[in-house]
């Protein structure tokens, strides 16, 4: 790897925060299924997925913490709801199983594209971590893909519920690729290989064959794309109340 100048710290921190918050929020959302998933095997699967995502979030908060001199636990648990930068796709409540599968498929396919754009990046701490994350995420992608296929091909209630979930979630799907402030500097420093708008194009190309095959409507462009990681709603306020409850009851608690 050729030596490059230190990447722009502010933009890098924004990127890390957005990725860490995405993984943290979807991890906590998935953990909501522990004990109540529709099948015992899915109880195991969703719990393991949640554990993976929270682990990814911890590693990304770790990098962000080193960069900004902040305690990773404080980043995860001690911020107010408006300070989180996860994408709006992950702002919807758990909903039914079809909502969870639709959200996971849309997020996992987008996450893989984002990770691939960072895997050869010039900032080694992130590129090294991404090399590992990619290998784990493909299991998530396979899981979501198998369930999307199963629901979409089952005429009647399964397909109807999936279509209803997509109506709610698909307009927010592209918010994973909300432009990061200072993103041009990250591209110039070769931390990421293309701007987010280009990654969104890659993502659309990657899911088009699946959506075509299953006769599902492609996600529309994001509304208000500049603010895709802001304005979190009441569902996130509720989730935030859950995952911060122990830290708020006992500030500084570790477990």
């Amino acid at each position, binding site marked *: 790897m050729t030596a490059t100048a230190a990447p722009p710290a502010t933009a890098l921190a924004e990127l890390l925060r957005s990725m860490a918050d995405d993984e943290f929020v979807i991890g906590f959302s998935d953990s909501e299924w522990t004990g109540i998933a529709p099948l015992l095997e899915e109880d195991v699967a969703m719990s393991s997925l949640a554990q993976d995502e929270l*682990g990814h979030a911890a590693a990304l908060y770790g990098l962000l913490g080193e960069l900004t001199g902040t305690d990773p636990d404080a980043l995860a648990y001690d911020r107010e709801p408006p300070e989180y930068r996860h994408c709006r796709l992950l702002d919807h409540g758990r909903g039914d199983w079809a909502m969870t599968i639709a959200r996971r498929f849309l997020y996992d396919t987008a996450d893989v594209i984002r990770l691939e754009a960072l895997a050869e990046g010039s900032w080694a701490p992130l590129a090294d971590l991404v090399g*590992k994350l990619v290998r784990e995420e493909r299991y998530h992608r396979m899981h979501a893909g198998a369930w999307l296929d199963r629901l979409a091909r089952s005429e009647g209630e399964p397909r109807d519920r999936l279509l209803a979930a997509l109506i709610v979630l698909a307009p927010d799907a592209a918010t994973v690729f909300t432009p990061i402030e200072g993103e041009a500097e990250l591209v110039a420093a070769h931390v990421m290989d293309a701007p987010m708008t280009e990654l969104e194009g890659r993502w659309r190309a990657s899911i088009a064959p699946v959506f075509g095959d299953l006769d599902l409507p492609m996600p529309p462009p994001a509304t208000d794309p500049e603010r895709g990681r802001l304005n979190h709603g009441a569902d996130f306020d509720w989730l935030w109340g859950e995952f911060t409850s122990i830290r708020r009851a006992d500030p500084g608690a570790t477990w």
Partner: protein
Amino acid sequence: MSEAGIQIGVARTRSGAIAGPQRTAAPVVDEAAVHSALTEVMDPELPMLSVVDLGIIHRVDVGPASGNGLIRVEILPTFVGCPALELIKSSIAERLGAFGRPVEVSATFEVPWTSERISPAGRAALLAAGIAPPGAGAAGSIPGGLIDLEPRVPCPHCGSRRTTLENLFGPTQCRTIRYCADCRQPFESIKSV
């Protein structure tokens, strides 16, 4: 066994420690000695595997053999969110502490741990414990690419290849759950990553 050998053996048993007062020469602390000690540190989630057989030892640095410097060990997490990581680090530090030098154990993602790093002895130990070792499913494939959903992983109990994937996920992050149609046993297999 010589008379002296027996005496030393008795002394060790009584004192309960290897480093008894009879020892005259300081123990040699080189990379080989550290590696040998690491073969005694078992993974907490796969206790039939040492950290060496699991393939997580990335780098060992003992400094000058005659010195009393830091022993540094870098390990590769099998999974990014592995909850056993802290326990593994402290188990390694505790075992190497017997060399009487300061020990530092850290984790790195400098190279990704892959399931191909599990040693032949480790694979045999997994099989003997009823856990199918990782297959060649991911070998040579693109890191981000999808692998075959249902590679015919042989049953660790009867060897049949008439097995099916029941769950991509399992009781720990590194395992999937499969089922053998011949001996009708569910079994776990190590994920190919």
